[in-house]
């Protein structure tokens, strides 16, 4: 047990020693387009089965694909945001396989010549540590339809509403070493996509899904055989699935077995992965360039035009927040996770202590919103009021402890903190005379303890502070209480 405490994240202690995970992610991000990648049917669904379907999506004989310009732009934008190489010529290939929700019998994807090549992103692991994850490529492809298997004992039902919706597949290099890193990576990608508006990042609705390639090895060894866990739609599941899959692989290898390269599903009820039966067949996708489409070509000028439209991205914003507000890199990384967070923070921290504002926003506000199931968008506490609250603390008008009560009241009444403080008489007492009165009372009532303290029991100092604060109903200025107590306990 003590040994496990020394394990780094992503390491597993087996019976034969320490193992390390090697993880690569394929993220499928649904592009926030109005229509599908190759057809004019609506890309938003939720409506009746087979309603957002064109004859092209249903792969009727003689139907042909025509590509959506917006989707191409979003892929280029994302590539730029991932610091990746944009390929001015890319090719659409057909990936051939049979499945009920794949009407054409092939998926139009990009194989040898994707629209975006290598890039990299920086991810924050905790307050101190960052790591770089390489991007292998980004390509455009069609989503498949949906099969419902639980409607009938011997039949499956097919809905093609999702068929042909535009996806960007973002493939990482196998640079990820722990489930936590994987989680942070997905968060970072999601954040970038939302910043630039390429994808809404909604994981519950499937707008962002990840396939996780997991293998284990002795630290520093060659890569082991990997398994691919398909279609994970929450960061929590990604973390769980990787951990349990890596442990499964260690168990197999240590008991003398070999890992089969295969596709697996994560069972959310057991927290374990299992082999996918429908994918048992040896795969041979027979990729070849789609003869219904020509190579996708665009100029450097067009890429430059798209670059102009990019908003400030998380990494740059983060640097700006650290520089302008003096906050820690970790706090900054949390605050740039979503564009709305950053906007809120910049408003709140305007003219007040940036560090304190970050603390309050990340710990108190986010905590309270989560508890109430609210988002920042409909937060009862406005950025201005959060800033004012921080101002009251900084100026010593209220103590941090009182501030928490004021904040709770703000969550309910939406009132400004000054108003609440005024109404409830919560102003901090910073008057020497008032506090000295309380100190005298405490010393008088605790003669024994004063003796002990003066006799060397230094620890008792905290007790006196506590008593004075209690007498003041928390309103006494703690700094002042400290100072005056030290002067008077002699």
């Amino acid at each position, binding site marked *: 047990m003590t040994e496990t405490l020394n394990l780094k994240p992503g390491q597993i202690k087996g019976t034969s020693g320490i193992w390390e995970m090697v993880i690569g992610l394929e993220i499928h991000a649904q592009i926030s387009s109005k229509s599908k990648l190759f057809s004019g049917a609506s890309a938003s669904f939720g409506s009746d089965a087979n309603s957002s379907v064109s004859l092209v999506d249903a792969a009727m004989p003689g139907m042909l694909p025509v590509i959506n310009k917006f989707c191409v732009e979003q892929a280029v934008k994302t590539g730029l945001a991932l610091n990746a190489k944009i390929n001015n010529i890319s090719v659409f290939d057909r990936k051939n396989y*049979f499945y009920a929700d794949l*009407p054409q*019998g092939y998926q139009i994807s990009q194989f040898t010549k994707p629209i975006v090549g290598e890039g990299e992103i920086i991810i924050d692991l905790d307050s101190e540590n960052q790591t770089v994850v390489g991007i292998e490529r980004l390509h455009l492809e069609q989503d498949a339809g949906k099969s419902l298997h639980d409607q009938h004992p011997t039949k499956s039902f097919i809905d093609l509403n999702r068929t042909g919706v535009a996806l960007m597949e973002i493939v990482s290099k196998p640079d990820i070493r722990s489930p936590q890193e994987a989680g942070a990576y997905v968060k970072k990608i999601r954040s970038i996509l939302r910043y630039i508006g390429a994808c809404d990042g909604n994981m519950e609705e499937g707008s962002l899904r990840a396939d996780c390639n997991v293998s284990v090895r002795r630290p520093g060894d060659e890569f082991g055989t990997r398994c691919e866990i398909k279609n994970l739609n929450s960061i929590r599941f990604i973390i769980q699935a990787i951990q349990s899959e890596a442990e499964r692989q260690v168990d197999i290898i240590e008991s003398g077995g070999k890992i089969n390269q295969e596709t697996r599903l994560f069972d959310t009820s057991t927290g374990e992965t299992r082999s996918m039966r429908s994918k048992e067949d040896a795969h041979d996708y027979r*990729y070849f360039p*789609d003869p219904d489409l020509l190579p996708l070509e665009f100029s450097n000028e067009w890429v430059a035009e798209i670059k102009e439209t990019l908003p400030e991205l998380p990494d740059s914003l983060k640097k700006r927040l650290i520089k302008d507000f003096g906050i820690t890199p970790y706090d900054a990384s949390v605050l740039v996770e979503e564009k709305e967070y950053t906007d809120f923070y910049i408003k709140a921290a305007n003219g007040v202590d940036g560090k304190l504002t970050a603390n309050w926003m990340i710990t108190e506000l986010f905590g309270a919103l989560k508890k109430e199931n609210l988002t920042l968008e409909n937060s009862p506490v406005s950025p201005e009021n959060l800033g004012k609250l921080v101002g009251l603390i900084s100026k010593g008008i209220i103590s941090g402890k009182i501030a928490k009560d004021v904040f709770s009241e703000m969550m309910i009444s939406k009132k400004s903190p000054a108003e609440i403080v005024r109404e409830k008489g919560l102003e901090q007492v910073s008057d020497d005379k008032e506090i000295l009165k309380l100190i005298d009372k405490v010393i008088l009532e605790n003669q024994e303890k004063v003796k002990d303290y003066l006799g060397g029991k230094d620890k008792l100092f905290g007790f006196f502070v506590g008593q004075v604060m209690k007498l003041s109903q928390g309103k006494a200025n703690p700094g002042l209480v400290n100072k005056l107590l030290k002067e008077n306990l002699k």
Partner: protein
Amino acid sequence: MSDFLKLDLLGASIALKNKEISSVELTNAYINAIEKTSSLGAYLDVQADYALEMANRSDKKIQQGTAGPLEGIPIGVKDMFCTKNIKTTASSKILENFYPTYESTVTQNLWNDGAVMLGKLSCDEFAMGSSNETAAKGNVINPWSKTNPMSPGGSSGGSAAAVAARSALAATGTDTGGSIRQPAAFCGITGLKPTYGRCSRWGIVAFSSSLDQAGPLTRTVSDAALMLNSMAGYDVKDSTSANISMPDLMTYLDNSIKGKKIGIPKEYTQDGISQDIMKFYESSINWLKDSGAEIVPVSLPHTKYALPVYYIIAPAEASSNLARYDGVRYGARNEAATLDEMYELTRGNGFGDEVKRRIMIGTYVLSSGYYDAYYLKAQKVRRLIKEDFENVFKNVDYLLTPSTPTTAFELGQKQDPLTMYLNDIFTVPASLAGVPGISIPVGLDSSGLPVGVQLIANSFDEPGLINVARTLEKCADFNLIPDGAAK
């Protein structure tokens, strides 16, 4: 009645516009002719009532002076074109009950210009064949047949037979490796394959997407020009469609070809070609020379590799294009307990032998370990073939070649797939290069079967191609009607 059938498309069009005849009369004559020639098996589906309804509408338009260029002209449609609410099967069992809810761009263009739809014409299954023998509904018989029934060629065999038998004034076809030009040659009519991208592929059942091209089968070159005028056009629904406008071909028909350079490729006259065909080929060369053209011997060195390239690329694309016929959304289905079994039975039963053979070849050449050796290699040689044409068109304006190595053969004679594939030896190179080609009849061989020659032009030079073809047509003056034609 017979007078109606004597009119070619251009003649009928003039007679209609001059109100000498009505479209209803003309259409009735053709419905009659279809009945009389039904033993040829050219039609899979006759739309007599619908045709008369359209003819009626055309007559009104002619009366009102709002007639389109093809107003009232009864034509047949190859069953590869999806026709709205009219059964479309691609001559395959797997689509035996498919009623498209949409109309192909090319046929829509024809109806917009006033053409009248007689019905759907047989072809090789999914256009895969050179004899029309792979059609699920049985053979089509060449109206030029003597004692034994002969093949009309393929895959547009029904289209060629119907036009030759006077049971359609013109027909649409599709050409992937020669499927318009070869049957036109076998049936003694004109068949034009336009430049790849000239006609939209939208709504045409796909065989090999990088090669498929629609075109007309007609009695004369002028008729082909009239048909292509209507069929061609840029279509935003087809990403491979060319946004290059085509001038009115009719205005090019009778230009002089004086000084035009006609290339005679040496690779097209080697072994296996029949004596009679060589004789007419030589006459054709002389006719063009007499018309003022300059004859230039040329070489397209990679010609012999065109068929091997074609028999990799076309099946590869087909294996993927035909994956959608899976019994889920349309077409025939064989019930089974599991999805995979359903797929295998449906496709095993629904496709005929030749289609299965090509799906197998196509799947094989794309499969892991073989892709580079077959598919990629074929794509590279395809570039060399295309470059052959680009090079030769730097020096000459047109190429003249035989259309086929032999004239029509008896049905059932060529059992071996490879022997069958050799039929397309002269038509496949232009398909691979994407350039336009036309086959026109120039005479009868010693057995009384039509001989065709092919003219090939550079990409998008259909006007010039039509001009030279018309010149040659006038010289050859071929105007014989087969015994099997409606009278």
